[in-house]
């Protein structure tokens, strides 16, 4: 007997007798919770909260932020851009050649209030197109578990990147969002680099 027929003949099993009562109880409980969510109390901060904020704003107005702290994220952004360019050069070269990638970090002085620059979108697209094309040609390599895993990781990172981009567009350059974006870009660069390395062996 083939597997398909055997699967169709698999026996059905009886769930526990009180299963519906449990589902029904959960649904009713969720409805009660949802209703109570609308009545959650509004909580009060400390009475002197405003005085603390006003004091801090006044103190900040008279202090100077060190330049290195403000430009640090742009250093990271520049490093990612250079890394992506390095990856792009790997696949531009013939695969038989021994390729050496040189990395350098440069400080880019940019007005901090302006929005974060996208991370070399052209290099991103080229890297991903290269991976797609290689996988179309080298189907055996792309079936390897490590390649599948890396591609899955890249997809996941792309999804997270898109989510962050939406939030950045909505809420502006929140420092945590920008940090998360840099982290994701670094991870993407690492995964892309590894994929390109495997596909060019």
């Amino acid at each position, binding site marked *: 007997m083939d597997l398909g027929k055997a699967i169709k003949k698999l026996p059905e099993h009886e769930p526990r007798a009180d299963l519906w009562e449990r589902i029904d109880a959960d649904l009713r409980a*969720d409805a009660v919770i949802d209703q109570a969510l609308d009545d959650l109390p509004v909580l009060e901060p400390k009475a002197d909260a405003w005085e603390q*904020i006003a004091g*801090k704003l006044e103190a900040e107005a008279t202090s100077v932020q060190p330049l290195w702290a403000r430009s640090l994220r742009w250093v990271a952004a520049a490093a990612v851009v250079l890394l992506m360019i390095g990856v792009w050069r790997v696949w531009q070269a013939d695969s038989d050649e021994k390729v050496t990638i040189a990395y350098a970090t440069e400080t880019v002085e940019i007005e901090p209030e302006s929005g974060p620059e996208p991370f070399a979108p052209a290099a991103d697209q080229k890297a991903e197109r290269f991976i797609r094309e290689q996988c179309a040609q080298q189907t055996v390599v792309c079936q390897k578990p490590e390649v599948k895993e890396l591609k899955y990781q890249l997809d996941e990172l792309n999804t997270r990147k898109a989510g962050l981009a939406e*939030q950045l567009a909505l809420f502006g350059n929140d*420092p945590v969002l920008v940090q998360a974006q840099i982290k994701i870009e670094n991870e993407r660069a690492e995964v892309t680099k590894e994929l390109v390395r495997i596909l060019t062996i």
Partner: protein
Amino acid sequence: MAQRLLFERYKRAMFSVALRILNDNDHANDALQDAFVEVFRHLDSFRFQSTLGAWIKIIVVRQSLRKRQLEWRFETIDEERHDQAVEVPDTVTGEALDAAIRSLPDGARTVFVLAEVEGYKHHEIAAMLNISEGTCKSQVSYARKLLRRKLAELI
């Protein structure tokens, strides 16, 4: 003073968010303070792509998450131990639910508050906490299971 009026208008709603995330009065006050300083520092960069309240709230949420600093730990429910049907009374008040939320484990509480109380989408929360959407969804489900059990004990 315009800044003071803005603070007075939003302080309770924003403090409630911070306190529910941090579960600590002092830390929540610190987060609120830092968040409003950031709000006033960057008010000129507000682009009206959301409501002002939503913009302030995301800053409060991020300050609260930054204050927490610890690595997130997400518990999972032990199905064998908690497989009994529970009856939650219809008379559950907002205060009772608030207390039950505050008793949840950190990870589940934060995800539940962001998703169910503050209305953020799973992918937004996943990005905020650097977790997968799957973890986010399972923690909301876990939080609900724990809340049902805690509220059932009110009977």
